[in-house]
């Protein structure tokens, strides 16, 4: 066992207690509902960004003619700036705690699938694709359905939350088996 480092100030700690963080996200939800009359959500504005990214490849005409992209056209609106804020907050947190570091292949992945960057990137790409497609089909992700939906006791929110966990557990069984992991 290594000796523990000296305690750091709250803002410089690398990790906060998960219950404190959960309560923080809960209180953030009240604030968002009250101040701007919106729920917490991520993937809806991400759709507009997908349209922008696809435009040079597919062509502005085809994208512009698509009914779904028309409905979710990219703009620097509240939702998009909220995503920008998430990036800013993640960066700020990492810098303040000194935990910003480049990661190409995470340890749990490496222990199971080796240190090939190409293999990890391919999986991340496919995983990201599935996450976004699934979130659009379900009309919300972990934030919009899992937290915002569930906290309002929406039927869709809880259906999403429970189904997501069931399929996540099944997938991890297929990919990682039942073995004990090494330390992260």
């Amino acid at each position: 066992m290594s000796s523990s480092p000296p305690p750091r100030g709250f803002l410089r700690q690398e990790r906060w207690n998960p219950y404190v963080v959960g309560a923080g996200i809960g209180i953030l939800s009240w604030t968002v509902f009250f101040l701007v009359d919106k729920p917490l959500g991520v993937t809806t504005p991400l759709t507009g960004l997908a349209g922008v990214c696809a435009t040079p490849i597919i062509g502005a005409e085809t994208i512009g003619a698509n009914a779904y992209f028309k409905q979710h056209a990219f703009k620097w609106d509240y939702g998009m700036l909220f995503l920008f804020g998430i990036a800013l907050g993640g960066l700020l947190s990492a810098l303040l705690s000194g935990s910003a570091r480049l990661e190409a292949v995470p340890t749990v992945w490496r222990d199971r699938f080796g240190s090939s960057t190409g293999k990890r990137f391919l999986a991340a790409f496919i995983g990201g694709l599935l996450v976004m497609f699934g979130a659009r089909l379900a009309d919300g992700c972990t934030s919009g359905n899992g937290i915002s939906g569930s906290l309002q006791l929406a039927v869709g929110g809880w259906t999403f939350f429970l189904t997501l966990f069931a399929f996540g557990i099944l997938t991890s069984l297929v990919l990682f088996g039942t073995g004990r992991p090494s330390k992260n």
Partner: protein
Amino acid sequence: MIFLAATPPVSGSSALIAAVLLGALFGLLLHRGGVANYNVIVNQFRFHDFTVLKIMLTAIIVGGLGVLALNSAGLANYHIKATNLLGVVLGAAIFGVGMVVYGYCPGTAIAAAASGSVHAIVGLLGAMVGGTLYAFSFPWIAQKILPVGALGKVRLPDVTGIPTLVWFVALLAIAVTVFVWVERIERRRRLASS
């Protein structure tokens, strides 16, 4: 249901500034909570790390009770999405598979990408493709999938007849039981590994 004034306390261009600040708080909380980390998320689904469950259940209960209080006081509207049951189940299933392969959900991916996770950025590019594929499948999905089990904007109290507050008392009891259980597992594992 009490209805609010047409405009919320913060609107227009000040809402755009609020968006960045509120988003930054969310990103900070996700990162400090440890969920902008592939290992933490994947290990949740392997029952080796319970951080995701602790954060989500606490957020749902604290958030839910607060929004309920605000709504009862006429200070906040509910924002319920329409439930298209088949779409939600299929979408959540695909999402669950993707979340373990990717190791992030969209929000945590953005926080992770900003703090140096390169594979999170690669996955976000995949997400752009996923969003585009969905947009072009939308006409078919809207016709064949979304109408199946279209329940409208329903809440659990609507479909069960059990009042909101009772739901929260039950949720709190379940959450506390789960928390006591996982803390005990974690303590036992810490002892076993030291």
